[in-house]
Structures are given as C-alpha cells and as structure tokens.
C-alpha cells in the first residue's frame, strides 16, 4: 500500500527499483519498531515471574529483541529473491556486512529497550508514548525515501538521527554491496550511548521491580 501510494502518487524516482529501496529500509525498521513496541512492557507485564523467581531480568526484553531479529533474518530470502529479479546480485560482502549491521542493531535495540522497559515499570503509559514517538521516528528516518532524495542542505539534519545511518547502511549493503564503513558513526555512537544509559538505568531500577509490580 505504501508502495502504491508513494510510487504512483508522489512518483519517487530512484536509481534502483523503488520497491527494493523501500523494502531494504522497511525490513530492518520492522525489526526495530516491533522489538521496541513488544519489549517496552516486558518487565511491567511479567510481574508474575519477576515477583516469584530470581533470574537475570534482562532476558525478558532480550528474548523479544532476538525473536524479532530472527524474523528479520528469515525475511532476507525474500529480499534476495527480489534483488535477483533486478539487475544487482548479492555478493560475498553480505557475509560480513549482515553480521556487523545485525550486531549494531541488536546493541542499539538492547540499549533502547532496557531504558524504556525499566522506566515502563514505574510509568505505565510510557509504552503508549513510545508508540507515538516511533511513528514520528519512522518519517524522519530514510525508510520510505532514500537519503539521496533529501535536499543536500537537509541531509545533515537527517543524519543526526542515528537510525538513519544504520538504515542507509543496510540499504547500501543490499543494493550496492557496499560494506558498512565510517559513515555508520552516528549509529555506533548512539548504540554505545544507549547501552551505557539503558544498562545503567536498568541496573539502578532492577532491584525495585518486584516491589513496584
């Protein structure tokens, strides 16, 4: 639906077929979005377990993130098939690029999700606010449009968004067989920051989970 709307009505013109541009951005985004949405209440909704059993609490959000990561990996063959229909071909670069980008996205997700899920125990409406914030995030990230379509003077602003460089990383890996390089730095920086902040907040609040639920 997004495809029809954007292709026929807005007439986005791209080097590669537009459906490939769209899907190479959309698949990683779906992993990102679904993980955050589903993992946000992972402590708050598992009070029964948290109040009765001692176990490393971070496995609750981790399982959601990894589960959705597996869905993402399983959706890659569809992408490969569509890419084979177009002119480009998968290359050996994928064997290195996919694990690297997967690890970066996994780390970024864990940082964000630990923060959101920990705070959600004490502020239950956070899980709904996150929903709103995610739909905003969707549009400021080059998912339904490629980065080169953005006017040059706006590009730096788009790239402040750490997710933009990650999504563009996935896209250039799939469409140009380009290995992720230095242009990934906003995503890397954000991942480290998210892990430090998310992990720190989680560690501070973890002890209070059982009493707050």
């Amino acid at each position: 639906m997004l495809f029809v709307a954007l292709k026929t009505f807005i007439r986005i013109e791209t080097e590669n077929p537009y459906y490939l541009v769209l899907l190479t951005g959309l698949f990683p985004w779906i992993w990102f979005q679904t993980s955050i949405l589903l993992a946000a209440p992972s402590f708050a909704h598992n009070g029964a377990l948290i109040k009765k059993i001692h176990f490393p609490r971070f496995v609750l959000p981790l399982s959601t993130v990894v589960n959705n990561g597996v869905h993402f990996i399983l959706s890659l063959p569809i992408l490969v098939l569509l890419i084979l229909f177009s002119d480009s071909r998968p290359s050996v670069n994928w064997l290195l690029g996919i694990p690297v980008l997967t690890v970066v996205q996994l780390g970024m997700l864990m940082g964000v999700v630990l923060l959101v899920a920990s705070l959600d125990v004490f502020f239950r409406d956070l899980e709904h606010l996150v929903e709103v914030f995610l739909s905003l995030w969707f549009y400021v990230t080059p998912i339904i449009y490629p980065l080169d379509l953005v006017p040059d003077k706006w590009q730096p602003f788009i790239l402040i968004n750490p997710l933009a460089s990650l999504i563009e990383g996935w896209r250039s890996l799939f469409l140009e067989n380009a290995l992720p390089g230095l242009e990934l730095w906003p995503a890397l920086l954000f991942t480290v920051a998210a892990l430090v902040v998310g992990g720190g907040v989680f560690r501070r609040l973890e002890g209070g989970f059982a009493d707050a639920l």
Partner: protein
Amino acid sequence: MHCDEDAICLEAVSKRYLLSFHRPPQDIKTAILHLPSVLTHSRARWPFWALSDINLRVRKGESLGIIGPNGSGKSTMLRIIARITPPTTGKLAVQGRISAQLELGAGFHPQISGRDNAILNGVLLGLSLKEAREMIPGIIAFSELGDFIDQPMRTYSSGMYVRLGFAVAVHVRPEILLVDEVLAVGDAEFQDKCFAHIEKLRAQGVTIVLVSHDLPAVKRFSDRVILLEQGRITADDKPDVVLHEYVSRLSLLSRVMTQA
C-alpha cells in the same frame, strides 16, 4: 563474620518500604497533570521497616522454621533470601541453587500450559532446556495433574496451581528450598505427600526454610525455629523452646483479650 560455610547468611539486613498518603503517580500523564501536588505531597512519605537489623545464618543442610504473627516480616524475609527484592541495608550471601515457593502460585503464566510453565520455570532457575524437559515426567507424576498438564494454567483450580508449583519447586534439584505457607491449600493427601518429600530432601542434605502457621508441621520439620515479631527476631532456638514461647504468648494475649 564468616559466611563462607553457610547456605544462607544475613548480616544486619533491614528492609524499608516507603508509604505515602497520596498514591504516587503511575504514569507520566498523571505526573505532569498533577505536577504541583506530586512535588509537594508525594514527598510526604514515612518509612515502614518490614525488617530491621536481622542477623541470621543457616548452615548447609539445616532446616529452619520461621513463625510469627501476620505482618511480622516472614514473607519479606523469604523474598529477600530468594533475591526477589534487595534489602535496603545489610548484606545477604546465599550459596546454592534456590528454589522458592513464595505465597500462592510460583511464577506461572496463565495463558500457557502447565507443561510449558514448568519448563520455563526450570530454565529461569538455571537448568538447561534438556534438564528442564527431563524433569517433566517426575513433575506430572508428583502433581497428579495427568492430562491437565497440557491445559493452559488459567483453567487450573487453586489446588492444581499449588500442586504444580510445589512439584516444580522440588524437582529442579534445589540446594536451598524456601517454602512459604503454601501447603495449606492442598488436600490432606497431597500435604502428606509434600511433607514426605520435604523429609526426603532434608535427608539428602537440602537446606530448607519453612514459613508456616501450622505449628505442628514446623515442629516436625525444623532443626531450629526463629520467631519474628514486628520485623525483628525475638527468639531463635530449638523448635520446642520457641514454639512454647510463642504459644504461651498467644494464650496470654487471648486471656488478656477475654478479660478486657
């Protein structure tokens, strides 16, 4: 103090809960809408010490009974030992795998089947998936749930809940078993079975902490009993001595009540 050889060791452990007249906001929206009152009123809290200055050492293989009136801190103490909630101050050292039966129903998810819940519990307690699967036949036999094991837990009666909970707790091969007043829900036959099993675990050298108001049971299964009152240990001795102390206080209390 050396805690190395003890299964459970609490040093000057206290647990404080903060109470407030005004319920602190549970979500961001309310917090923002009521910002002025949140900043003023919810600061007005007073502490409630559920446990204060508890020193307790339980040797490996020892059976400890905990008795005391409602609200004396028995359950809080078990929750701290089970590392569900951290103590506000003081130190806790525990050696060995803990399996806890805290209040009603272990950590069970109502939507998934009893079998899956049992496996999930085993894995969360540190077993491998294979070990968790292997303990299932024993759990089915012990809990006598039969085919109900594959039904979602929301369909279970409270008795079935307790049966499965206890069966899981004793089959994860615990080195320390915490039991909080759960056996009262099972029928007499199942209670006997549980007690027989506790006896067996005790003989195997499992450390057991039993919280109960069932004084004969406490007497039967404990090497040592502590009496908790208002968050403090007021007696710590052989079962006979502590039980006698507790009962005589109760009867004294009831005599005063009837006279008044």
